[in-house]
């Protein structure tokens, strides 16, 4: 991967009447990388994508692709192509005609078009389907044809607007891997927008988490997961147990928080927030960070005792719902499918513990995005 920048946005804003859809978004995407924009519906990610494609003009700010400003350039003149949410394949054309559409617009020679179409079909792993009608393809095949239709034009950037949303779960899992492979094979810069955090995490080199028009955090999937920089990211990316409370005291970067239910918890302040006593905060602990045991634990930052209230079996992804004995709050913990915990029953008493730096603490915000 080269460090050359394919697409950069500087201070993009978009307002519709008095509604601000995108606020002051800036980012840069290196050539050949897979960049995802992750956010709940209505966060402005589609608006941002449509500005990149050229269907909308930003109210202010600049978009440059390979150093060239895209302001005022219509969608049909931009070196950018888009895979639409419902794919928008042309039903009255065959597969080959669909792929050839863009090439014909460029007035390429028929022989050249034929070669490129065959080549594109080969590369998406569907050789020989050129003569079929769109309605004869399966969901996953349509997906790949929609991508081939764009990639055959060799765009600098490919935009994907939640194209996996309409597929069933099994196929979606499969297509995630497929998309990532296609991106690596073509080496094209992909910008993928989704509300599904697993899609974004699995495929992307970098993910931007978007909320009410802003980029909350941009980073690698690991970064977002382990080092969220805002409460929204901590809550939206991955699953978390959330506690609301107030700061009681702090020692170094360890903050002691008294939750609304009366528990005292310790968390390390990762992002420099200068939390002080009395401030309202939110504390996040991931279900897999919590250590389970049948015996009381000694000297940990946080420890709790609780009864198993429910077992949410989901194979390797199983969870235990534990009701804390003293405060009555509910905590989700990963249920390890090991011999030690495989015979857990409802009502069993378990001891929970985690270290301060395995949880995150943020100032309480009004924006509550549920994961």
């Amino acid at each position, binding site marked *: 991967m080269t460090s050359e920048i394919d697409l950069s946005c500087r201070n993009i804003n978009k307002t519709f009447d008095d509604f601000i859809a995108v606020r002051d978004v800036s980012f840069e995407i290196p050539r050949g990388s897979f960049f995802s924009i992750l956010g709940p519906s209505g966060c402005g990610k589609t608006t941002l994508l449509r500005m990149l494609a050229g269907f909308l003009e930003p109210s202010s700010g600049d978009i440059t692709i390979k150093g060239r400003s895209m302001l005022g350039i219509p969608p049909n003149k931009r070196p950018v192509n888009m895979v639409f949410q419902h794919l928008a394949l042309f039903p009255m054309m065959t597969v080959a005609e669909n792929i050839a*559409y*863009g090439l014909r617009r460029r007035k390429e020679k028929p022989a050249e078009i034929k070669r490129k179409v065959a080549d594109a079909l080969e590369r998406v792993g569907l050789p020989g389907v050129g003569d079929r009608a769109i309605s004869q393809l399966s969901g996953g095949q349509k997906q790949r044809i929609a991508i081939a239709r764009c990639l055959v034009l060799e765009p600098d950037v490919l935009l994907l607007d939640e194209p996996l949303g309409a597929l069933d779960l099994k196929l979606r899992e499969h297509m995630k891997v497929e998309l990532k492979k296609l991106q690596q094979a073509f080496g094209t810069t992909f910008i993928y927008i989704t509300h599904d955090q697993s899609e974004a995490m699995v495929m992307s080199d970098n993910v931007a988490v978007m909320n009410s028009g802003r980029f909350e955090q941009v980073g690698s999937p690991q970064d977002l997961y382990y080092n969220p920089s805002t409460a929204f990211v901590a809550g939206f990316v991955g699953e978390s147990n959330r506690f609301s409370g107030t700061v009681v005291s702090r020692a170094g970067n360890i903050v002691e928080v008294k939750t609304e239910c009366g528990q005292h918890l310790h968390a390390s302040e990762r992002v420099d927030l200068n939390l002080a006593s009395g401030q309202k905060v939110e504390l996040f602990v991931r279900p897999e960070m919590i250590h389970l045991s049948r015996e009381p634990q000694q000297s940990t930052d946080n420890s709790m005792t609780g009864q198993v209230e429910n077992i949410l079996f989901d194979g390797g992804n199983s969870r235990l719902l534990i009701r804390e004995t003293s405060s009555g709050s509910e905590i989700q913990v990963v249920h390890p499918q090991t011999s030690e915990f495989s015979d857990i029953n409802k009502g069993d008493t378990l001891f929970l513990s985690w270290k301060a730096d395995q949880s995150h603490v943020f100032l309480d915000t009004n924006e509550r995005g549920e994961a």
Partner: protein
Amino acid sequence: MRTLTGKRLALFLLLTPLLLYLFLLILLPHLEILNISLRERVSYGVYKFSLASYQEFFSEPLYWLTFLRTAVMSVLTTGITLVIAFPVAWYIAKVARGRSKSVLFLACLIPFWVSELVRTYGWMILLRETGIVSNLLQFIGVVDGPVELLYNDVTVMVGLVYTSMLFMVVPLVSTLEGLDDSMVEAAYDLGGNGWNALKEVVIPYAMPGIVSGCIVVFMLTLGNYLTPTLLGGKDSLWFTEQIFTQFITRFNWEQGSAFGILLLTLSSLMVWLGLKLSRQSFSETVGR
């Protein structure tokens, strides 16, 4: 023999009115018309098989020229109606939203609350020599004397297009509504301009609606009697007038029947040709 029970019986009972209607009011009269057209009166109450009526049609230029003229003008009317109705349908289906959409649709329908006869007289009130348009033109000084705007081909065409609009707009709106906006956006995104998007994506997509609208409008125009007669006057030379004349004025039922059969043949042939050229099938277009 199998007995009719349950569902099958219900199906036949439900179909009976339709089958009776088709047989008694459509098929039977046409068979009789065909029969009449193929005979010649020898003396009182005595007829023999003959193709004389058809021979008469081809040997008398007035007849076949009127026939041809009617066909050409009907095709023209259909084409003009399509060109005018397409943007209207596009606006109703794709641009208008919510309330204004239903209001616009209603606006297309409202003229049909008035009988065709009254509507046509409305046109005459506007366009005759002493009519509103003529007076207005004189008042603003464009013309010196009264102008007669009735009784010419343009007026007939205007009247026919006006009568046909709704039958073109409705099928167009219903097909265009099914067109996903992102398909047009995709056409742009992949490098097309407005013309490409229209030619390669919108029109092929709307083809079933276009063909079904054209078939209906063509058939209605070809068989229209009132509009050409009233707006075109004596010179309109519409083929339905010839049929009327043969049946009512000349009392020559044999000739009138032959004309009727010829008109039916013409419209069937044109529809078939239209479907072949647009590569659509009857069931995909009108049958939807």
